């Protein structure tokens, strides 16, 4: 009788855990997309190196509905920022200038504030003469874009709606200018086939020593351009299942995305890549 109860308990436990997984996979996670059923995640659809930008629909500070799908055909700089973030406050005046300069060619900038309350954002908006739309973000929006762990985090989206570059941390204006010009050069809704990241992974482009493939990689600092989509998925899973030994508490992948200067995560990520390639060679 007792053993039957134990078995029943185990079975119930397995059912609950399975149900939890399914609830999260098909109910909670999609709910975080905020938008229509066509919402995608960074790795869900499209070209592995230039994934489709996840769609969202949010209301701006001025009450305007900002729907990313309405921006198809434009080059979009999506900037996750906050008023309490010093590096963000340096970049924003540059973004204001960039939009004024390139708006006629098709550049649009959308600010996603990660502040808790809109009040300081409104003040900041006026103080810095921001004339591009700013919406209030949330962890859910951040999760759509793979999790926003450090601010500022900027995504450059091409006219075809694909993400061509991601910059975590203060990034030099020259980097944005070069990348924006390349993306603007593509025809309407066309892929920017020759896009080469200007560098400037995490941190400043002034100290960037990465190759473009490394800088524009989903694993900053590691050239994954030779991996197949399946291998890239496996590689990211490897990095997500291993914690960085630098003491940050992040997984190796998170550490690469958050702190590009971390030598430990870079070594671990490169070692994992070598291991994956060895495995596939054998």
């Amino acid at each position, binding site marked *: 009788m007792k053993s039957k109860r134990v078995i*029943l308990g185990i079975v119930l436990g397995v059912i609950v855990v399975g149900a939890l997984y399914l609830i999260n996979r098909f109910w909670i996670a999609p709910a975080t997309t905020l938008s229509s059923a066509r919402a995608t995640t960074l790795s869900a659809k499209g070209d592995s190196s230039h994934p489709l930008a996840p769609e969202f629909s949010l209301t701006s500070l001025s009450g305007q509905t900002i729907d990313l799908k309405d921006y198809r055909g434009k080059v979009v700089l999506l900037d996750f920022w906050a008023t309490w973030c010093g590096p963000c406050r340096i970049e924003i005046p540059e973004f204001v200038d960039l939009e004024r300069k390139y708006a006629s060619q098709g550049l649009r900038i959308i600010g996603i504030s990660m502040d808790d309350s809109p009040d300081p954002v409104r003040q900041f908006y006026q103080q810095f003469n921001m004339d591009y739309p700013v919406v209030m973000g949330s962890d859910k929006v951040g999760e759509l874009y793979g999790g926003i762990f450090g601010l500022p985090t900027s995504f450059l989206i091409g006219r075809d709606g694909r993400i061509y570059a991601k910059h975590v941390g203060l990034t030099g204006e020259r980097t944005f200018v070069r990348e924006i010009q390349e993306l603007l050069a593509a025809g309407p809704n066309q892929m920017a086939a020759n896009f080469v990241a200007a560098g400037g992974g995490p941190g400043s482009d002034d100290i960037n020593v990465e190759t473009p493939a490394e800088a524009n990689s989903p694993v900053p600092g590691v050239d994954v351009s030779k991996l197949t989509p399946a291998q890239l998925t496996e590689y990211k899973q490897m990095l997500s299942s291993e914690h960085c030994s630098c003491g940050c508490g992040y997984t190796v992948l998170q550490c690469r995305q958050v702190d590009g200067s971390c030598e430990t995560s870079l070594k671990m990520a490169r070692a994992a890549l070598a291991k994956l390639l060895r495995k596939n060679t054998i």
Partner: protein
Amino acid sequence: MQIIGSRFARRVMPALALACVAGVSAYAQKPPSVVKARLVLATQGAHSSSVAKAAVVGQIRAGYHINALHPSLDYLIPTEVQLNRSAGVTVERVIYPPGRPVRFAFLKTPLAVYEGEVLIGLVLKLGRADASSVIPLRGKLSYQACNDHACFAPTSIPLRLVVPILPASVPLQSAHAAIFSKIRFN
């Protein structure tokens, strides 16, 4: 129905419900903190109706900083210690260290920040308590961290400490002397 109504089910269901909550919480992706912190007492215990010293010992990951209690700029989020109201304990004073002025690439003016180890002193007034009892303390260290090119969302670390109440006849012995010697309580 038989299962749901059984004593076994009454025992197992709450545990499973707890496991569900824990599972969902664990699944939610959340960046871990770059600061570790603990709360320690200056002595091995305290006497009833006395004053005790405690300290928050924070360790900030190399390459990162958190804003001081009084940040240099009004938009920055300060580091603060908060203890929950607890029966028999009053926080009399919190002694924060001065921020260290540090220059960062993203600002021309230096910012008052904490880097590396940060020690925050607490003076606690204990009410009457039975000898051999304990007073549990709970609180949090709130902070907002950055490195030299990126910032991370404001967050907090839970703090916990159990203060053993000793009989008046038991002399108090100092603990964590190296930590408390660095805090200016006066």
